């Protein structure tokens, strides 16, 4: 990747993180940690590797993004807003009465959201269904699906993975936000997911483990995933929950936290 492009993507990811902080800040509380950890991968997809168009948000052959860890809605909204899927001023409306930007992704409320999610474990099955349908119709769409490491406690994640591997859904790219923290504490204490790569390899996935905040590495992994035929892909994003904000990064209880106006203005440098 050339330096200029990489610099653009890195700056974009930083800006989008600030948007998330501001968005949650306008409401006062939200799922900040898991939004910050997926932002580099979302930037790689929406600003480099993906085939989507804000001017034609329902085009049939577009790539789909399913945020199965649906509480990362604000991360999706930051991207979709920046891309022009909806008006910029919606940033102040997150979770407020009558909003089109609810905590968890809702395909019937927010332009550009491809699947409703929030009850963990369900989005991955829907992504598998999309991949099956795309193959049936010779639709070239790639189906990207983000799952959480805590979410992987859900049995449905494994039902869906088993089917995807068994049926060689190579148009499906799973991205695991491996930030190693879930709501009640460390994944390793609550329900150990390691050895994570081995698990999906055993489910017949093409598995790559990448530093989850290195956009260049994520883009390369997506290229390799697309080139690898005959298996679905798992890209394990080795991430830090809350990455990119001083008050969240590596903070144990940043799954959902309060953000005051003073906090988000100070963090983003955005003046009143």
């Amino acid at each position, binding site marked *: 990747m050339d330096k200029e492009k990489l610099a653009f993507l890195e700056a974009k990811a930083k800006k989008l993180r600030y948007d998330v902080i501001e968005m949650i800040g306008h409401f006062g509380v939200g799922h900040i940690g898991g939004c910050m950890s997926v932002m580099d991968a979302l930037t790689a997809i929406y600003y480099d590797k993906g085939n989507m168009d804000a001017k034609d948000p329902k085009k049939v052959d577009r790539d789909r993004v399913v945020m199965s860890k649906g509480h990362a809605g604000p991360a999706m909204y930051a991207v979709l807003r920046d891309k022009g899927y909806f008006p910029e001023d919606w940033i102040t409306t997150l979770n407020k009465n009558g909003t089109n930007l609810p905590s968890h992704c809702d395909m019937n409320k927010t332009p550009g959201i491809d699947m*409703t999610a929030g009850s963990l474990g369900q989005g991955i099955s829907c992504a598998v269904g999309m991949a*099956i349908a795309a193959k*049936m119709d010779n639709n070239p769409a790639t189906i990207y699906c983000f799952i959480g490491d805590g979410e992987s406690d859900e049995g449905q994640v494994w039902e869906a993975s088993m*089917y995807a591997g068994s049926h060689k859904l190579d148009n499906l790219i799973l991205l695991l936000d491996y930030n190693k923290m879930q709501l009640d504490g460390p994944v390793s204490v609550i329900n150990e997911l390691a050895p994570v790569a081995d698990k999906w390899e055993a489910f017949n996935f093409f598995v790559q483990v990448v530093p989850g905040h290195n956009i260049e590495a994520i883009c390369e992994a997506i290229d390799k995933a697309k080139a690898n035929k005959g298996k679905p892909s798992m890209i394990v994003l080795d991430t830090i929950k809350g990455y990119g904000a001083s008050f969240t990064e590596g903070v144990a209880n940043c799954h959902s936290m309060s953000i005051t106006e003073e906090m988000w203005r100070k963090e983003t440098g955005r003046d009143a």
Partner: protein
Amino acid sequence: MKDELEMRRVLNDTLIELSKTNDKIVVIESDLQSCHLTNKFFGKEYPDRVINVGIAEANMIGVAAGMSTMGKIPFALSFGPFATRRCYDQIFISVAYAKQNVKIVGSDPGVTAEANGGTHMPFEDMAIMRAVPTMICFEPTDAAQFKAAIPQIVEHYGPVYIRMFRKQAEQVFCDECMKDFKLGKASKVKDGKDVTIFASGIMVSRAVEAAELLKAEGIDAAVSNLHTWKPIDEEAIEEAAKKTGAIVTAENHNIIGGLYSAVAEVVAKKCLVPVEAVGVNDEFGQVGKNPYLSEVYHLTTADIVAAAKKAVSRK
């Protein structure tokens, strides 16, 4: 008299027929293709439009929802309990809340699960599916009615639950008399002036028998088939209440949340008359043949007769 065709065969044949002009219909199974014959019939005709996800009902419903977002019209099948309560949250969120166009078929309703027993015997499937906003809940009576209903189910955009007896049903209707069939509108079986029996599924033919027996005792009973439990035909219920002044509901299902509840909700709102329930009274299933279990759970013709008399006496 029993139908010539099994209900599962009607489903296969009708979907095959519709698929000649509709390439969106797909069938999703969770390892029960042999029970629904979708391997022998629909799958033989359209092998590329059948997905068998294995014994994974939650994934089945999610896959169906995902395929629906891509424009497909999935029919997801399993035995009643596994097609509903096993994957209830998936149906609620991925299908209904997400406004997806998925048709769910739960087979072997109530006592018709017979030798599979309590684990496989849904007495509550319609109750829980009724509680899903936007879900249409439908129990076909016989082959002629099912054949008439399936095109309307395909035509309707939105989630539908079909409570399907798999085998040959007792014939109540004919193709000719089903030409005006409408989902959500009761199918009248016979007129009467003293009491109306609203029946569904296997209970419809028993209600017809009951009406015959009641006639001998001087009670003129109307029989109406409420195949669609949601949206319920409020007009038909109000009309029956006003005309006959007493109602009996007959269902192969728990009366809690089932047809009795659905009818009583309307009666309470529109026109208060006595309503007697024939149905399972808050119990689990068990193994046994349909006639035996029908005695055990009080679902027989005699039970309908007794309920009708009681309803009339309460007027």
